[in-house]
């Protein structure tokens, strides 16, 4: 049985959605709570920018849990702490935040080890899953950003990863070479964390872009969280630094330290102790519920979470770890 496509790959269907996307240079600044309330709906296919524990929109992920969004689809594209957070909405007595997951990498936190709770969720069989490679899943956003139903690639061939994906073999019409058609992925909604945005949603960030340039263009709705709001005029002065234009964006939320406990290039390093706390506390289901009540469900917003995690003193230490790293090596 071929693996399912969780979203339509039709370019014309996508054009219909983009046809109704607002074009106005309008003020989109709002709270994370309002953005999630307005733009994330039960059953949506959701994507999270960055790279698992680097430049991730943590505030949006927590808010999705707090608002109890249900039955989301998700692209697990080197999803590490982001997937771990969303999994906290499954098998914790609050229904089922995640229902369908396209997987290229989930439940591991790279060198830090595996998430026990994410593993419980996925091994329970309650998620519908489809396999991909990282490149294939990134290319799905490229195809969507291009407005075409698929793009060709050469990886995955000959493997079970291919057999359990929803990609299809094709022959090159010019050379006859065997290729893989990687289907477009148009998320209903995505959230991306950036360094700077203006009130209309023009964005710039530093460091690797991972898949976010394409993801921003592929998503039907886009929530931006930013370290800092900056004056619109500053974007106009350096248009070559803008990576995401306002046309793609539906909400702009200023969230200082918004990638915490993840790394934000040039701003602060990941909080390895706190990430270790998540992994450790998940080993015991009762302890994990208590932890979630204290750190996520029991706090009003992301700023309160930062306070619980050590506040300004902790963040200052993480900033020094990030910006002084070159000195330490000398």
């Amino acid at each position, binding site marked *: 049985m071929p693996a399912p496509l969780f979203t339509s790959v039709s370019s014309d269907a996508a054009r219909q959605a983009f046809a109704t996307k607002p074009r106005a240079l309008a003020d989109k600044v709002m709270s994370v709570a309002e953005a999630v309330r307005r733009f994330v709906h039960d059953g949506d296919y959701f994507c999270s920018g*960055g*790279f*698992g*524990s*680097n430049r991730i929109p943590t505030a949006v992920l927590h808010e999705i849990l707090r608002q109890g969004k249900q039955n989301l689809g998700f692209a*697990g594209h*080197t999803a*590490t702490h982001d997937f771990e957070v969303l999994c906290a909405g499954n098998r914790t007595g609050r229904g089922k935040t995640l229902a369908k997951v396209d*997987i*290229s*990498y*989930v*439940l*591991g936190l*790279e*060198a*830090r080890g*595996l998430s026990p709770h994410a593993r419980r969720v*996925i*091994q329970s*069989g309650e998620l519908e899953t489809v*396999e*991909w*490679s*990282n*490149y*294939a899943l*990134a*290319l799905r956003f*490229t195809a969507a950003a291009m407005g075409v139903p698929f793009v060709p*690639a*050469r*990886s*995955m*061939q*000959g*493997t*079970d*990863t291919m057999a*359990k994906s929803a990609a299809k*073999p094709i022959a090159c019409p010019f050379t006859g*070479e*065997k290729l893989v058609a990687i289907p477009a992925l148009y998320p209903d909604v995505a959230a991306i964390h950036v360094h700077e945005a203006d009130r209309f949603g023009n964005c710039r960030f*530093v*460091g*690797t*872009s*991972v*898949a*976010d340039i*394409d993801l921003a263009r592929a998503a039907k709705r886009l929530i931006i969280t930013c370290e800092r709001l900056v004056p619109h005029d500053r974007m106009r002065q350096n248009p070559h630094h803008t990576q995401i234009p306002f046309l793609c964006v539906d909400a702009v939320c200023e969230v200082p330290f918004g990638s915490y406990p993840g*790394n934000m*290039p040039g701003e602060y*390093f*990941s909080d390895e102790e706190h990430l270790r706390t998540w992994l450790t506390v998940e080993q015991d289901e009762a302890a994990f519920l208590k932890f979630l009540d204290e750190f996520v469900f029991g706090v009003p917003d992301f700023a309160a979470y930062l306070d619980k995690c050590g506040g300004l003193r902790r963040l200052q230490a993480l900033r020094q770890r*990030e910006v002084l*790293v*070159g000195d*330490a*090596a000398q």
Partner: protein
Amino acid sequence: MPFTPMELMICAAAGELDDGRTVAVGTGLPCAAAMLAQKTHAPNLVICFEAGGLAPLLPTMPISVGDSTTFHKAVLATSMTDVMQFCQRGMIDYTFLSGAQIDPFGNLNSTMIGTDYARPKVRLPGSGGANDLASFCWQTLIVMKHDAKKFVPRLDFLTTPGYLSGPGAREDAGLPANTGPHRVISDLAVMDFHPESKRMRVRSLHPGKTLAEVQTATGFELLVSESVNTTPEPTELQLSILRTQVDPGRYILGRAG
């Protein structure tokens, strides 16, 4: 100078990387090996990371292949598709991978243990970039702890391509020609692949290890090279650089070999 099995593996892995070449690495042992190579015999080795970092001057060992050290003083901080397309175009010479299981043809499993995909006995992270890197890079280097539960005749899930079912299978499947697994470096030995049969073959034994030990720790029959020699011991210079410059925090070196 005494050394641990982990230090030997890192040094053996570093020795496979020639100067002036390009390598796509992940965190952990592969990154330590690439950093060591750069600080010893291969100063012009170009390191790249799948999240978008190209040719960084790594200040410390990265924790994530996307953290900010992976593009510290790099020449380019780009996208995952850009880095993967360097690989797909044939610009990246080596990649370094590992997995939960490996078979005689160097195929890797990092997806699941069990027989039912819908209800895995143990779910693992999945391909990540491994499938792409092993498909595209000219030579795949594999590092694994030697254990008959990991070196298996048949994988539970073929996540990442080695030589698939044998000679010619990669090309038949559509993968780029003249690519595939090159070395397997374990805590007991270094293996390569027989040029005709594409089956795993013992190339050198680590100091003090025997062929019988290696075969016992392997769940399938290993071929043996006509001239099996001994893996060179790490030099004092290698060990000193590894301990003081590559991993002073013993982030990798502190792990059991």
